[in-house]
């Protein structure tokens, strides 16, 4: 009976096999050529096969040697941080840097439990002002400060 003894190795192996397979499937339309006249598909296809080989090696090893369990994923920080980034990206051109920065700070703060709302709001205002002064006025980065373009 096959038993996965090293789940982290199996996970990594499967990721590699998937990337290698994608490299081959999506590279099918590229001319392979020959060694003397390498086409655009030559090197990527070669790499993809090597990646699959490494992936399979890891998968086989995961059945043979013991390894630590995969750490549990804590969704709260992951989701909050990603949401904060996306909100910033969606808002910056509409509302300007100040508001986008403040919202990013507030959403990101909820990546932790027991948020102190007052402290978070103060931090949001502080960071918004700081980034506008430093990045827009100080470093003249191409960002709208107060309103969208």
């Amino acid at each position, binding site marked *: 009976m096959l038993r996965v003894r090293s789940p982290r190795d199996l996970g990594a192996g499967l990721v590699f096999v998937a990337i290698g397979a994608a490299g081959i499937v999506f590279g099918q339309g590229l001319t392979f050529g020959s060694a003397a006249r390498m086409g655009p598909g030559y090197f990527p296809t070669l790499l993809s096969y090597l990646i699959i080989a490494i992936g399979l090696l890891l998968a086989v090893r995961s059945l043979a040697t013991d390894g630590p369990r995969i750490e549990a994923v804590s969704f709260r920080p992951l989701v909050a941080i990603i949401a904060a980034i996306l909100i910033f990206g969606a808002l910056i051109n509409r509302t300007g840097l100040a508001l986008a920065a403040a919202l990013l700070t507030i959403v990101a703060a909820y990546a932790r439990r027991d948020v102190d709302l007052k402290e978070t709001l103060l931090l949001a205002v502080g*960071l918004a002002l700081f980034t506008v002064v430093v990045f827009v006025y100080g470093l003249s980065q191409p960002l709208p400060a107060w309103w969208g373009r």
Partner: protein
Amino acid sequence: MDVLQNLATGFGAALSLNNLGFCLLGCLLGTLIGVLPGIGPIPTIAMLLPITFGLDPLSSLIMLAGIYYGAQYGGSTTSILVNIPGEAASIVTTIDGHQMAKQGRAGAALGVAALGSFFAGCVGTVFIAAFGPPLAAIAQEFNSPDYFSLMVLGLVTAVVLAHGSVIKAIGMVLVGLLFGLVGTDVNSGVTRYTFGVEELWDGIDFLPMVIGMFGIVEIVRNLEQPELPRTQVSTKLRDLWPSLQDFKESWRAVLRGTGLGSLLGILPGGGAVLAAFASYTLEKKVAADPSRFGKGAIEGVAGPESANNAAAQTSFIPLLTLGLPSNAIMALMMGAMIIQGIQPGSAVMTKRPDLFWGMVASMWIGNLMLLIINLPLIGIWVKLLSVPYRLLYPAILLFCVIGIYATNTNFTQIVMTVVFAVFGYILVKFDCEPAPLVLGFILGPLMEENLRRSLVISRGDPIVFLERPISATLLALTVGIIVLIVLPQIRKSREAAFQE
């Protein structure tokens, strides 16, 4: 003397008011992020890349280099006083440094760390000045097959010296190489793996990838773990100067650490982190009484702290002379140079001597600045440590995102960052370090081009890699290294070195 004349040019360039300012800025930022746990030099340099667009190439390289070696100084402060490494290269310093602080010798530990770092930094700078030109001269002889073999050697060494599993690191390098090929193929004009996304025609953007995989993943990982209680040792830092006895006990360790660090820095795949670990192991081996280690042995601070700073300096050698980045930070520096329109390699030294020598000179100036920043001003840095992570990470996140958006005011960049953050997070859960991937990514197009050219010359016969003496030597070295890691005994000692 040629070197002296070159150094004079370098100091002339580095001592301009503008460049002195950027050197100081880099050193201050480096110390800051070195002191603060939870943010290292890789995301900081990535974050600052967009700002360097508008700068003159020399100024931006001076600043970015300052961040890297500045972080080595700052990292020791946190390790010694709070028992949390401020930076990966200072992990070993916590072992004996914090014990010293508990015994009321924090001043001596900090003083020895800073003075050792300064000495090592000076020696490292001399190393670059001495070994840079001859290596660049050798590199002039390099042809496509030699470059290809050099990259193979560099990537293999990087993999062997990386943390964790060698097989996974190889996989990550290969994935990085593949990612590097995304976009328009220069030879045929065909777009590869763009999936109809116009933004991918020029390839995967470096910044969203690096910030996603290092910066964002780092924040999420820190938030996952419960915040460590910071047991700060409140010492009077009045007498920072180590006693004569401290000097007597540590000068040999400083010398050994500097030598070891300088050598390990040059190796592809080496760098500050590896140097610090190796130096600690060495100090323990040569000590008359190894049982003192872990209980506040001053050599355990002096050696690794010198080694990490020496290595931080000398790891610039392969980048500046061969155009080959030896670790993820150097890959970022290479990215910064390419952004500025400079192809790193031996040509830099002949075409832009002011750039090479200016950087060398700025490193020495920077080390002097760091000594001043770190010794008398240490109280300020220690105060910064009382800023809790819950106030810090939103600011770090914000700077990361602004950096990405300011480079290319496009929502796609933000989405790419999120994609790479999730990808990097999954890989970290499976114990795959992202650093080898970045190295592969930078080298992907170069490697393909040199492979293509080599095989065109030889009409498809791979024997060309063995016929040229330089290439054959490099490949022989590569095989030698692979044989070494296959030998189980060596593998064991490598693991032991990383575990300590």
